[in-house]
């Protein structure tokens, strides 16, 4: 009846149009004298935390927000959650204006901040769960089902009855997640969910987020400055720098768009002179028998052939540069749109 247009099938969950959020930040000159001065005359400077940002996110998407500290990631999430009032622009989450903080919307989303906690410190996590159940008016049956499912997914059955202050950071973070997900939010904002966790726990957290997204078809925005989180979880990334979007698209497209080189990693049979290798490309690493050489993207095959004919090569790989490096270059580059 409505045709099979693929776009029509996808439900738009989040819409941000020309969002701007400027802060007045008071400037203080260094030292005691500066402090005294600022008591009398205060200089204010406008900081453009988010500067004309637009994007839409559809149902079930898991989008990664990346960018350096202070890029505007958290500010954007806070605006989407209704904690901040936008300086200008339009924000819609599930058709609501988040700033109005309507219960109908609040019951459908959750914001988890890795550095904030909502669990009651002196009581077992279970008690906070029960309070959240009442606050979000979750029916008994649904509550039981959700808790059982989440507790099983996160493997935290034994710690539910232990006072929160006695838990480890990783255990606490898991309980924070359960507390935030009890009302089965359709939209989930995760701000640095793996901050401070060890590698094993980071991995578990990622697996959980992935699993949760697939199982419940929830829409998730995740910010992180661990590339690992984003690489493993998100198909789509939005890169923010200095309040502006520098990239919005598939993670793999970043490589095509920004990487002008490829990496040849070689293992030699015999020692070779480093100077000789410089003819092939820029030698970024050389420790016999291994070498890593940067070559221009278009000429990568020719250069590889050249390497094979002129040097005693035991093994050769042509690789894409690591995404971390590309993004680092994107941020430090001046000519980024």
């Amino acid at each position, binding site marked *: 009846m409505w045709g099979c247009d693929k776009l029509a099938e996808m439900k738009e969950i989040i819409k941000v149009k020309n969002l701007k959020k400027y802060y007045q930040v008071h400037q203080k000159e260094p030292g005691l004298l500066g402090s005294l001065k600022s008591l009398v005359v205060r200089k204010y400077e406008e900081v453009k935390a988010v500067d004309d940002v637009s994007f839409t996110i559809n149902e079930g998407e898991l989008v990664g927000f990346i960018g350096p500290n202070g890029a505007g990631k958290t*500010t954007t999430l806070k605006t989407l959650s209704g904690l901040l009032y936008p300086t200008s622009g339009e924000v819609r989450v599930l058709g609501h204006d988040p700033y109005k903080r309507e219960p109908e919307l609040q019951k459908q989303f959750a914001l988890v901040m890795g550095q*904030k906690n*909502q669990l009651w410190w002196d009581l077992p996590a279970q008690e906070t769960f029960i309070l959240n159940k009442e606050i979000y008016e979750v029916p008994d049956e649904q509550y039981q089902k959700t808790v059982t499912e989440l507790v099983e997914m996160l493997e935290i059955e034994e710690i539910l009855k232990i006072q929160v202050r006695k838990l480890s950071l990783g255990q606490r973070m898991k309980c924070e997640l359960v507390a935030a997900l009890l009302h089965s939010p359709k939209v989930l904002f995760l701000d640095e969910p793996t901050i401070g966790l060890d590698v094993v726990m980071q991995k578990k957290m990622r697996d959980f987020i992935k699993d949760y997204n697939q199982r419940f078809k929830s829409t998730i925005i995740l910010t992180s400055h661990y590339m690992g989180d984003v690489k493993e979880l998100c198909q789509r990334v939005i890169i923010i720098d200095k309040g502006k979007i520098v990239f919005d698209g598939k993670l793999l497209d970043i490589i095509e768009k920004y990487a002008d080189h490829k990496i040849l990693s070689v293992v030699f049979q015999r020692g070779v002179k480093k100077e000789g290798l410089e003819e092939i490309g820029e030698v970024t690493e050389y420790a016999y028998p291994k070498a890593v050489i940067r070559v221009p993207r278009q000429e990568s095959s020719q250069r590889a052939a050249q390497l094979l004919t002129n040097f005693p090569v035991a093994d050769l790989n042509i690789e894409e540069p690591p995404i971390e490096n590309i993004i680092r270059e994107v941020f430090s580059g001046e000519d980024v749109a």
Partner: protein
Amino acid sequence: MEIKKYWTLAKLSFQQQLIYRGNILMYRFGEFASTLILILVWFVVYSRRDLLEGYTLAEMITYSAGVGIVGALSRTWIADIIERDVHRGNLSTYLLKPVSYIRYRFIYDFSGKQISSWFSIFTSIIVIFLLQRYFVVNTDMVGWSLFFISVANVVLLHFILSFLVGLLSFWFIQIGGFVYTSDVLLRIMTGSYIPLELFPQIFKSVVSFLPFAYMEYFSMQIYLGKISTLEAIKGLGIQLFWIIVLALLAKIFWKKALKRYESVGM
């Protein structure tokens, strides 16, 4: 549903306080000691006279013990709670939920203080028991009823005043100094140390134009039968007037504070 929400919260807040009952008990020992010292002072003062500004020794001792009970019921930590929420940024977690922050914190505070309040009342009862010879017992049912209504109003007034002080944390972040000084001033102006008659007349006149004279002092005036029923009812009206005015002020400043929180993104 709404009631269930807050009932669950009240139970949790109570449980949490229960964990630190030992610490709370120690605070109350200190309080007990200072009440005893005050009463000791009254004995010394009354050794040379029978009446002080219209109070007999028995009335004065009853006043001291009674003010302790009213103060215990109306004590509140809401200013410190707000400071903590703002300082650590936890306010955000409440703003995200389908719940009113003010109501949430009122219930949290009210339920959380119960253990502390009842310990205080218990110690006051010990004082009364030890000095029962000197204790004025009110036998008038109307007096008791008016007294209870006035105490309920005092509870509200203290909460709103402390809430207003707490809102300062949106501008000053750390407000320990404000909280301490306002506590001390409040104790003086509400007659929680000594009855307002013992201060210069001008002081009493000033606080009578403010809500302070209609708090602890006022409740004890009703209990001791120092004011007529008519005056008591008039006083309850004035209490109500202040509750409405201060609640409106609190609402206005709460909105301003939230605006600030939102625009600065603390």
